[in-house]
């Protein structure tokens, strides 16, 4: 059962604004991926975000997300909608700019910095309250998750091409 927020304050408004901007981006930017790959990418980011949050944030309580160590409605919206959309933009721009080799690593690095920056802004709105956590750890997590995403994407595209040939 999803819980409702304890207090509806600045962090919930931040989530609503973030969701609005991400949806706006979805309308503005041109999609270059196939539907099956989009679904695969959205699911990857939702799942990895949920498990990371479950282990690091909830179980080991390294940070407090949205006022509670439980999972409320806005946590769920963040994990199931906002994170996958961010992941979608990451993959969509990567595919549209056709980056390869060292440029991919640079791209992951820049995205990790962008995500750390957006997390810092979120922490100003008390979306995250750090207990035994800091932005350097976040950077390491983002860099690992995005690098893993590239491998996942390559695997997906390889098997997707073979499925189309059959």
């Amino acid at each position, binding site marked *: 059962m999803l819980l409702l927020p304890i207090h509806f304050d600045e962090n919930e408004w931040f989530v609503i604004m973030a969701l609005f901007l991400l949806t706006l981006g979805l309308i503005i930017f041109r999609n270059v991926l196939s539907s099956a790959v989009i*679904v*695969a990418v959205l699911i990857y980011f939702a*799942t990895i975000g*949920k498990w990371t949050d479950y282990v690091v944030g909830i179980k080991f309580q390294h940070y407090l997300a949205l006022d509670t160590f439980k*999972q409320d409605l806005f946590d769920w919206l963040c994990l199931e909608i906002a994170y996958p959309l961010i992941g979608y933009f990451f993959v969509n721009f990567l595919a549209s700019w056709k980056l390869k080799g060292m440029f991919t690593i640079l791209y992951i690095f820049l995205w990790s910095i962008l995500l750390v920056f957006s997390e810092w802004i979120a922490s100003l709105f008390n979306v995250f309250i750090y207990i035994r956590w800091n932005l350097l750890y976040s950077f390491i997590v983002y860099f690992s998750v995005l690098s893993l995403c590239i491998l996942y994407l390559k695997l997906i595209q390889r098997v997707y091409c073979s499925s189309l040939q059959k």
Partner: protein
Amino acid sequence: MILSIALLLTVLLTILAFRTKSLHKIEVIVLIVFISNIVNNVYSMWGLNLNHIKTSDRMEEFISFVLVSAAMMPALITCMLGIILSIRTLVWKYLFIIISPFLLILIEYLADVVGLIEHYQMSIWDSLIVWTSVLLIAYIFRSFFYSLLKGV
């Protein structure tokens, strides 16, 4: 010890899922990731928010729990879907559909016995509803993803 067993079972079931003839490899990958998300929802909402399930505080058991719920259960459910889709006889198909949630309950209660999780105020019928729903959602998602692959 428990972590090694969980790891071994995860690897075996993942290999088995990839060897399923009725599912394509891309379907297996996406299904495992999707079911992992659903299982996380189950443990977050039932376990965390309603306090019906508590995970172990010992590190080895907690890592085993994460491995079992994030990879082993999804791989097992994917195998089950593969088997359901490959069975041609209608009677056997329905029989397997009925048996499947009970197999998942058996694993959940084995996890309780070995100490990975502890059940509070959660009856076997609650588990039956949860795992039947997970199987149903996974089946609906597979149909949706299959239609995307075929470009419908």
